């Protein structure tokens, strides 16, 4: 324990120099701004700003890049709450209740809760990384392809609970998401699958394209239809920051979210993406009145946002201790580290202790910065909602277009997004919820990859998923979730028939 504080002391010594604090601030600020813009994600930003860090020392450069990363994560939630566009997979859940809160004039409270929840989660995650970073690495190594597959199955079962309406329709959407995820070149054989022979589809459908389409564009179309609904959003501003009652309601979800998100974040197979979904599921399940969820429940913002931030931070554990990047942003961090002559791996902690602990200390400082930057900005963001909608949606459109273009520098991506906008509008008309589809899509790719890997390694035996204890445990949880979710639904359906 004393060793941990000695390490943290060393870290804060490095991170609290004037230069590094300034870099952390700049990183968080740029990250927040970029994250707020729909479409421009942290990956593009970090890549663009990488050359600027050439002149800095490695610790400073990494502190700034890490700041951009969590700044963008946080900024993404702002867009999810204000205009119902999730910039990243982890912000999908925030749209469910966050945007509903905004519609009820509680945008400020939602943004404030997200900021405070993220901060609390960040503080805990920093301590966890400092105390348990090294031993937790072992958890990552326990997860082989079979375990990941079972984890993904469990994740898909969460999606059922996300549904706001009919469970059958939620199932439809999950399967549709899975189906969309199989579009593109097959990883193993290189065969094109369902691409219409169209080259831009050969790498599959980009998450940004799908999310901007079915959430962003389709939402604009939906709002254009009922002018009254959108004016209600403008009329009400409400209080700017969460009150005592809100905070009391959020504390427990926030802590549970931190625990869930932090644990899943350690898994190197991009487990962090499941964190917000898992947290939302849990909150909805243990709530006294689950029907409030999807209609602006503050727990539905506090829990997932904390999980999101905790996961974003613990995702550094496999990178710093194993040298293995769990997701695309972390892969970019590997690039940044190698440019500065530090090759991430098991020896970073012993060979560059000032870098390792400096970064961990800077995570806490970064979270504080985010709070300092974002709480004053809440008022500004909420004011944005007062822009007349006839000007707001063309602005959303130009930001989305530029953002999507810059993901791959492919103009055809913008046209695809429009196509998915039409698709999303159709789904709205047919009464389908897009959120479970997006989760199915995100998990689908990983799930197929892991299923095939597990079966090649087990030489085609499905028993591998049951014989391995962790995998079996995860599958058991999945079954339990399904049973709990389906039983009341079945009885409810019969009640409905009864009342008719």
């Amino acid at each position, binding site marked *: 324990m004393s060793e941990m504080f000695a390490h943290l002391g060393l870290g804060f010594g490095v991170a609290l120099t004037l230069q590094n604090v300034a870099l952390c601030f700049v990183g968080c600020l740029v990250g927040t701004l970029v994250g707020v813009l729909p479409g421009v994600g942290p990956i593009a930003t970090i890549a663009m700003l990488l050359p600027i860090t050439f002149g800095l020392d490695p610790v400073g450069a990494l502190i700034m890049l890490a700041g951009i990363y969590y700044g963008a994560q946080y900024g993404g939630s702002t867009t999810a709450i204000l205009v119902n566009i999730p910039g990243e997979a982890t912000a999908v859940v925030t749209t469910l209740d966050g945007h509903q809160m905004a519609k009820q004039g509680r945008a400020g409270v939602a943004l404030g809760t997200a900021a405070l929840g993220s901060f609390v989660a960040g503080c805990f995650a920093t301590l966890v990384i400092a105390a348990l970073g090294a031993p937790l690495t072992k958890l990552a190594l326990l997860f082989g392809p079979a375990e990941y597959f079972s984890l993904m199955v469990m994740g898909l079962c969460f999606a059922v609970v996300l549904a706001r309406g009919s469970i*059958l329709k939620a199932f439809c959407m999950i399967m*549709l998401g899975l*189906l969309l995820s199989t579009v593109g070149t097959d990883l193993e054989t290189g065969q094109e*699958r369902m691409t219409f022979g169209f080259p831009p589809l050969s790498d599959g459908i980009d998450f940004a394209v799908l999310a901007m389409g079915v959430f962003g564009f389709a939402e604009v179309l939906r709002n254009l239809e009922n002018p009254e609904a959108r004016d209600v959003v403008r009329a009400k501003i409400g209080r700017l920051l969460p009150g005592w009652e809100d905070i009391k309601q959020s504390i427990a979800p926030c802590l549970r979210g931190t625990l869930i998100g932090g644990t899943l974040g350690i898994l190197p197979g991009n487990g962090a993406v499941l964190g917000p979904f898992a947290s939302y599921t849990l909150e909805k399940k243990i709530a006294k009145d689950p029907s409030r969820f999807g209609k602006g429940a503050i727990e539905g913002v506090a829990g997932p946002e904390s999980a999101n931030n905790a996961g974003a931070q613990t995702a550094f554990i496999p990178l710093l201790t194993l040298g293995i990047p769990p997701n695309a942003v972390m892969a970019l961090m590997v690039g940044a580290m190698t440019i500065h002559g530090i090759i991430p791996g098991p020896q970073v902690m012993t060979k560059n202790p000032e870098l390792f602990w400096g970064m961990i200390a800077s995570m806490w400082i970064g979270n504080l910065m985010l709070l300092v930057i974002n709480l004053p900005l809440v008022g500004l963001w909420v004011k944005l909602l007062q822009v007349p909608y006839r000007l707001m949606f*063309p602005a959303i459109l130009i930001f989305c277009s530029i953002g999507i273009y810059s993901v791959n520098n492919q103009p055809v991506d913008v046209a695809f997004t*429009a196509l998915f906008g039409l698709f999303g509008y159709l789904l709205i008309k047919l009464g389908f919820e897009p959120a479970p589809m997006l989760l199915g899509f995100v998990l689908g790719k990983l799930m197929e990859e892991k299923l095939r890997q597990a079966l090649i390694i087990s030489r*085609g035996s499905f028993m591998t998923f049951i014989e391995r204890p962790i995998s079996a445990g995860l599958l058991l949880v999945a079954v339990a979730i399904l049973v709990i979710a389906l039983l009341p639904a079945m009885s409810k359906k019969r009640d409905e028939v009864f009342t008719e």
Partner: protein
Amino acid sequence: MSLNKIEAAQGWRIRSTQDFAGGLFMIALAGLALFLARDLPLGSLRQIGPGMLPKSIAVICAALGALLSLNAMRYKGEKLSGWSWRGVLFVLGAAIVFGLTIRGFEIGPLKVPQLGMLVSGPLVVFIAGLAADDVRIKELAIFAVAMTTACALLFKYALSLPIPLAPWLLGI
């Protein structure tokens, strides 16, 4: 289950056009996927082929769609609502125009040079803006120019994204 019998006794008819159409939609998508994946080999359990997952997921989609449609004939539900062509046309059209003009394109005899963001930007804002019922042309035009300038400064200069501004005029 007796209740279902009462319902069933009233005959099979479409009680929710929304769910019924949703079911058909799922079946249609599944059919399209099965058609597109028809040549992909299934492989074996030991070495799953590229067609295994798309085909099995498509079958599940179709089954769920069928179930949804059948349910729509038994339980009451939402009706289909109107469709706003104006929004679809202008909003989605604007995005497509942006995609076509930002780097230029060639479709058959039609050839548009690389116009860049200084042209595509105002176009996307202006065309999209026409979708609003309460559109004010003059305000929209000024807004289009202002937004484009702001975006050019933000994306090109502040974030230095490699997005073409106006290659035909400025060379960048």
